[in-house]
């Protein structure tokens, strides 16, 4: 495997530093805990957007079912937390103490079999990765091995999102129905509700996000990333060159699913509940919107997209609820028609050259002309 000697090129390094400074220093220092918790909620979607950059931006596979994986990860986490919150002492007013409250309301008297293993945190963490990963593997294998792609894949993932939502809402006794799993309290005895816990969880999430950025960047830079791009552009030629196109697509789709699931699990921890309203078609498409607005080809762009669109959603729908949907719809049409690479594309096309020119002129004035090394070309 050829790995570019530089992990980030110059503009990516700048993006990395800005994002790290923003998330680790500036936001925690300048926002109160409530706002910081909102940022944590936005960042859970950044995980999904990161996965979509790999799978949609690079691989060309548009999945309209990322809510499914976000939901699966979130529900795995929520099931563990819910079991911990439903200890026998906490639920002694129920007719059968020791099971989650919504089961009691739905006349289910013993814990269902598939809930049992979620008493263990190790199992839960494994499940957060494996359940969505395997699910994506099954869907991906069934679809890509038969060369179903493009619009058909998008429609079928959408149908899967619809099926899962109906299932969760319909099976109230096992899933909490439309209300979802609420009233999540402790993680291994550690209360996740007070302010200091929210701050710790925020930092855990940011560290996880940067770990995922590292993985995504690694995939992008290796030969795998190049094959993904080649596949997006000329699928048949890659196939004729002897690569198994289906396997690469399945891998990208599974990675995106696992990233989304990590986001979902952090969502359950940070926000304190999980419900089917984050699983269905509308949230799934909104996740695609974040990626598209930020820039489907840029890892940092997609993360900014998730933060900015969500921030706009919160602030605009608070003050101008009427305008919000108009604004979102118009923004989306504008992105598709006008700037397909999103905000990061605008940045790269209009802002970056000016900054470069500014620096270049300063450098030449000071007699320092060493810019041949800095813009490291790909190492081939």
């Amino acid at each position, binding site marked *: 495997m050829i790995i570019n000697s530089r992990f980030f090129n110059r503009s990516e390094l700048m993006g990395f530093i800005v994002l790290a400074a923003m998330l680790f220093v500036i936001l925690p220092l300048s926002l109160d805990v409530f706002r910081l918790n909102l940022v944590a909620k936005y960042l859970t979607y950044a995980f999904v957007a990161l996965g979509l950059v790999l799978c949609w931006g690079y691989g060309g596979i548009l999945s309209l079912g990322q809510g499914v994986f976000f939901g699966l990860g979130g529900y795995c986490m929520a099931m563990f937390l819910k079991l911990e919150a439903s200890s026998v002492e906490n639920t002694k007013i129920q007719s059968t103490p020791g099971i989650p409250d919504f089961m009691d309301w739905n006349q289910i008297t013993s814990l269902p079999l598939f809930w049992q293993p979620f008493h263990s945190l190790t199992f839960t963490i494994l499940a957060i990765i494996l359940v969505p990963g395997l699910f994506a593997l099954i869907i991906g294998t069934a679809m890509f091995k038969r060369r*179903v792609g493009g619009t058909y894949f998008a429609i079928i993932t959408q149908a899967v999102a619809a099926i899962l939502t109906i299932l969760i809402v319909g099976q109230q006794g096992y899933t909490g129905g439309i209300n979802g799993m609420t009233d999540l309290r402790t993680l291994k005895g550690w209360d996740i509700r007070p302010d200091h816990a929210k701050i710790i969880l925020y930092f855990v999430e940011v560290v996880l996000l940067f770990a995922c950025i590292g993985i995504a960047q690694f995939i992008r830079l290796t030969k795998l990333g190049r094959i993904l791009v080649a596949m997006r552009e000329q699928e048949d030629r890659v196939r004729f060159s002897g690569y198994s196109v289906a396997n690469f697509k399945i891998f990208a789709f599974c990675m995106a699913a696992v990233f989304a699931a990590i986001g979902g699990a952090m969502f359950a921890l940070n926000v304190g509940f999980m419900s089917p309203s984050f699983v269905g078609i*509308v949230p799934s498409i909104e996740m695609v919107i974040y990626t598209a607005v930020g820039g489907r080809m840029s890892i940092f762009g997609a993360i900014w997209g998730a933060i900015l669109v969500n921030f706009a959603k919160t602030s605009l729908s608070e003050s101008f609820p009427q305008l919000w949907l108009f604004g979102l*719809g118009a923004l989306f*049409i504008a992105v598709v028609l006008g700037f397909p690479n999103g905000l990061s594309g605008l940045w790269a096309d209009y802002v970056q050259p000016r900054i470069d020119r500014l620096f270049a002129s300063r450098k030449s004035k000071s007699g320092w002309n060493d810019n041949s090394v800095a813009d490291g070309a790909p190492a081939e």
Partner: protein
Amino acid sequence: MFGDYSLGDLGSIFVMQGFAGLILFSVYVLMALGLAIIFGQMGVINMAHGEFMILGAYVTWMTSSFFQAYLPSLFSGYFFLAMILAFAASGALGMLVEWVLIRHLYKRPLDTLLATWGLSLMLQQAYRSVFGAREVGVELPQWMLGSLHVTDSIEVPINGVFVMCLTVLITIAVAYVLYMSRWGRQVRAVVQNRIMAGAVGINTERVDRYTFGLGCGIAGVAGSAFTMIGSTGPTSGQLYIVDTFLVVVFGGAASLLGTIASAFSISQTQSTLEFFMSGSMAKVLTLLAVVGILMLRPQGLFALKVRK
């Protein structure tokens, strides 16, 4: 599960569920016809299809309110005018959308999906601002109320029969336009080979615009028919869109016959299952079956054999 019913009861149950399935079938066919034209013939994924339908429903509602207020003597016939108006309004909006938005995206089918989703968000908000968030229902004329008693245990609502007849008529009209008329031949020529169609003198841009307009217009008529059997709100369109896409894809994108066959099998399966289990589980099972079959046969039930 059958033990509690006598044979006669079971027969009636199947007939009644079958009839409910037929109404659902009409709904699916009406929605899927427009989508099959747009998706099947043009390859454009129109996520705002449901919103075009809702526009038709609102036009119908406004027409009925107008007749009630100013022409009460003609109220029993308002529906026929409403349907024409719904077709015109949705079709005109569709042609406008094609001109502003879709024609730039013919080479990027996945992006049509995203752009029309943006459009559907804006239309929903527009309906909410203009008509309010509340659902509106149309008052039916006298002759459409009540039901036909076929036997003691089987009765059939008249509005359902009316919607079914309407579906049959519209399907025949669409089939005629697409397969018999000169314009339909042009549409199919453009679909099969755009460059060659242009070379023999067909104005492909105009054909595209009218095709999109026709698909949206049919959606409007579908919305108009829906007011006969239910009420309409700003977000009603979104409820149907995935089902409709599945119907079209399941049937095979470019095939009118396939669309009808798949609408029939999906609606009958769902309606029959609905009697024996909760509505949501019936829906889950039906959708799962459709997705499963699509994985085995991605080109749909009736695939058109086209060289690519």
